[in-house]
């Protein structure tokens, strides 16, 4: 009998700053031009698991008027242990603390996508969604601000959300 394979959705995991309700820590509030932040890692577990994820990336505006067309990039560092993340980061993240990464180190990680500045209004949000294949047990997002302006630093709600979307035989 023919069996369709559909996409199923599982519980999402969020990264944000300590003042925002989220599962993991990544504070990109006030991230300067060319600044880099590596979030704490999430343990996907040793058991069989999803390998395809929907990732949404929200940049909640800037401190100053940004330049249309400039980008903020999102990457993922992975590892099958709690150390030894891709890029050989300056400091590996932990499950509660951010790591330390440079821009060149991030380029050896997995590129998820980039949000593009669409207006010069500092308060305007940037939001984009990607589909990413993550195959290692431990994952940590890395944000690179390639714009000329710092990300919003006050009462910001910047957020990375990762949701497993495994295929399911019906």
């Amino acid at each position: 009998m023919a069996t369709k394979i559909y996409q199923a959705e599982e519980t999402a995991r969020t990264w944000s700053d300590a003042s925002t309700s989220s599962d993991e820590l990544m504070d990109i509030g006030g991230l300067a031009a060319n600044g880099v932040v590596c979030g704490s890692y999430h343990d996907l577990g040793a058991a069989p698991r999803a390998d395809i994820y929907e990732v949404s990336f929200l940049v909640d505006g800037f401190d100053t008027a940004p330049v249309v067309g400039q980008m903020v990039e999102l990457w993922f560092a992975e590892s099958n242990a709690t150390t030894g993340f891709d890029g050989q980061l300056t400091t590996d993240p932990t499950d509660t603390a951010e790591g330390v990464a440079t821009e060149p180190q991030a380029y050896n990680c997995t590129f998820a996508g980039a949000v593009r500045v669409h207006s010069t209004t500092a308060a305007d949000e940037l939001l984009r969604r990607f589909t990413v294949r993550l195959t290692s047990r431990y994952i940590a997002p890395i944000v690179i601000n390639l714009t000329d302006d710092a990300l919003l630093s006050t009462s910001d709600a910047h957020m990375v959300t990762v949701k497993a979307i495994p295929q399911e035989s019906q």
Partner: protein
Amino acid sequence: MASKNYQASETSTVWTSAGGDKLMDMGGMIGTPIMGAYLDLGASPRADWYEVVVKIGGGTWDPDIQDTLEVRFSQSNSTTGFDGPPTTDPTSSVEGTMTIDQVRNCKLCRTLLTTSTTAADVWQCRFRVRLTSRYVSPVMRGSGATPANNTGTLHSITLTPIPRETQ
């Protein structure tokens, strides 16, 4: 009843100069490609997707920032006739030999960037690749002005099957 299809990782294979599973000595690597001994994935139904981790560096090498090292795979459905084709096909225990032009006919997977001029640093990247032939051999080449560290055990390629499994 609906059943989710999850990734189930299998046993890894490591290519390096000594102490790994397969021979691939990237010590002193520069422009000339290094082609590892082949891995026989078997004739039975098998995984087609793999996670690959490439680790390069350390020691006395002083690279330029963002030198690139190409990571490719040569494949075959027999123990000869690999993509390229190589000057000399690899065996299960001996490296093959390839020219720069031959390597361009192999599957390009990713480039690894050197990210500092600090000699002791290590560079690591990860990617997913679909390998559909029975015999697979990784191929690496550097493009920088200085060769990789001469100690081959500092460099490795790790291949892990990641088939999906119906729960």
